């Protein structure tokens, strides 16, 4: 039998068994995703009810201890607040940029590339750049000194953390904003102006409602990773700016109380899921009705 014949019989074999064929193609990726993504999350749920280490006695202590602790709840609250602030800043800047590129630029692809490229460099490296800039006597302080202004030594402040997050997520947020805006028929904006609405009224009445889906996507894409982040607050915020992600990391790398860390992780996931559901269900209406085609 030649190779061709062998392959031919393979084709015939699967042709007669469409379900087996689907299984052969969709099966492996599904299996990997289930075993190495879904199941681990389930495992985390299970471990969160154990005491001290994997396989310990069943308990609710991890959750109770966490929810009952004012310290930890404060950390969660502050994390929520900071994430919300960062999301708002990134959304505003990102949308403005996407709008400028879609409506006013001629070299759109080049500009988009320039925006996206930084995203494909290492997160750590991008943080390191800002350490260079924000540290006492670093680039920012040196430049301020040159123009006669006092040094600010922004490193290890909450502002530094905010700058870091904005820097990291801005390119990512621009993508859904751009996608949404570029599918908007420009004639609609002209029609609105023709009917008497100035550019600002047009933006509120036409552009924003019709790009609502993109806006929501962008907000979600920024808020969720910010909420769980530990690298940026550790590198740029030092010990004064604790975010909940740092607490989890700490439990796994230093304190070695894995079940407790798992419980916190589950709490975070719950918060994220709730916010996601709220956003997708009500966000569109808040922005004026997402009548966006597809």
């Amino acid at each position, binding site marked *: 039998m030649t190779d061709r014949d062998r392959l031919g019989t393979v084709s015939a074999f699967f042709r007669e068994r469409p379900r087996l064929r689907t299984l052969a193609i969709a099966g492996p*990726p599904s299996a990997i995703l289930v075993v190495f993504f879904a199941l681990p999350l389930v495992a*985390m749920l299970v471990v969160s009810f154990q005491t001290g280490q994997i396989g310990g006695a069943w308990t609710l202590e991890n959750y109770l201890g966490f929810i009952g602790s004012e310290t930890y709840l404060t950390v969660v609250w502050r994390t929520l607040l900071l994430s919300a602030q960062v999301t708002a800043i990134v959304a505003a800047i990102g949308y*403005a940029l996407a709008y400028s590129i879609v409506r006013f630029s001629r070299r759109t692809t080049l500009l988009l590339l320039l925006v996206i*490229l930084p995203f494909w*460099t*290492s997160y750590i490296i991008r943080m390191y750049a800002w350490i260079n800039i924000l540290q006492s006597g670093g680039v920012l302080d040196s430049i301020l000194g040159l123009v006669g202004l006092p040094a600010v030594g922004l490193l290890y402040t909450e502002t530094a953390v905010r700058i870091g997050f904005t820097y990291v997520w801005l390119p990512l947020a621009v993508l859904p904003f751009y996608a949404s805006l570029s599918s908007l028929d420009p004639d609609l904006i002209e029609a609105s102006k023709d009917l008497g609405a*100035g550019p600002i009224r047009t933006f509120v009445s036409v552009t924003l409602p019709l790009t609502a889906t993109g806006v929501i996507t962008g907000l979600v894409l920024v808020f969720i990773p910010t909420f769980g982040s530990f690298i940026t607050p550790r590198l740029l915020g030092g010990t004064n700016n604790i975010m909940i992600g740092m607490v989890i990391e700490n439990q796994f790398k230093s304190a070695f109380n894995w079940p407790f860390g798992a419980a916190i992780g589950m709490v975070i996931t719950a918060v994220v899921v709730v916010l996601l559901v709220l956003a997708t269900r009500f966000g569109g209406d808040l922005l004026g009705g997402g009548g966006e085609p597809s």
Partner: protein
Amino acid sequence: MNGRRTIAGAIERFVHAHAARLAGVVTIAVLAFLWLPIGVLVFMSFADGGVLSFPPDQLTLRWYRVFLENEAARGAIVTTLTISVPSTILTVTLATMTAYAVDRYGFRGRGILQLLSTLPIVVPLVVTGVALVLFVDGTLGLPDYLSVVLAHVIRTIPFATLVILPTFVRFDRRLEEASKDLGADELATFRQVTLPNVFPGVVAGGLLAFTLSFNEFVYTYFVKGSGDPTLPVYIWNQIRYNVTPEVNVISVVFLVVAVTLVLVAVSLTRVELLTER
């Protein structure tokens, strides 16, 4: 429709007249914000006096030489490659299978497969990282190397799928029909007609997956116990405990590699990356 002599009217008229200029300012300002820090890194990699003195007294290639001679750094690069290359191959294969299945077949788990393949982007990295350690390391007890490779696969599959799926969707099925009409069976058609046509998208997905994997920190940080660190973990350690200008050099090297790979990926798909018009 009649001339409005109000403040609102004046603002609208102002914006209308200067819209293009405002857009230009926004674009330049944001791009500067995004690229100046990178410029600083590149600049500082040539700095003689070390990280703390800006502006540097002298410029030098010294740190590049140090980097090239640094065994630990070189070891980290090798480690990263031994993880990223296999994981990328695996990711691309799985993503292509996912894209094919989702595009062509209707089956009961289709929605779930789609959901699962994009979810890793949404779940906070720290949560998934922790979960992976618990299950893959703690419960399954797989060797470190395998755990890390699989972690990278999970991390990169959503992005690869996001790029490869549209390529399949856009592919004209009539080409396959013509091929079968001319006598080629399913496998032969796939090999000779489908694959060559979706190949650019597949390669682009692969390049993006590789770039992500090469830069991947969080999962690796959790899953990899001890032993040789990958480059991002190595940098993390350097930054936390022992800052040298050498880190700047590594950053620049990273940047060049990442930028090149992304540019190649982009030119292959004619920039229809994640933003379909």
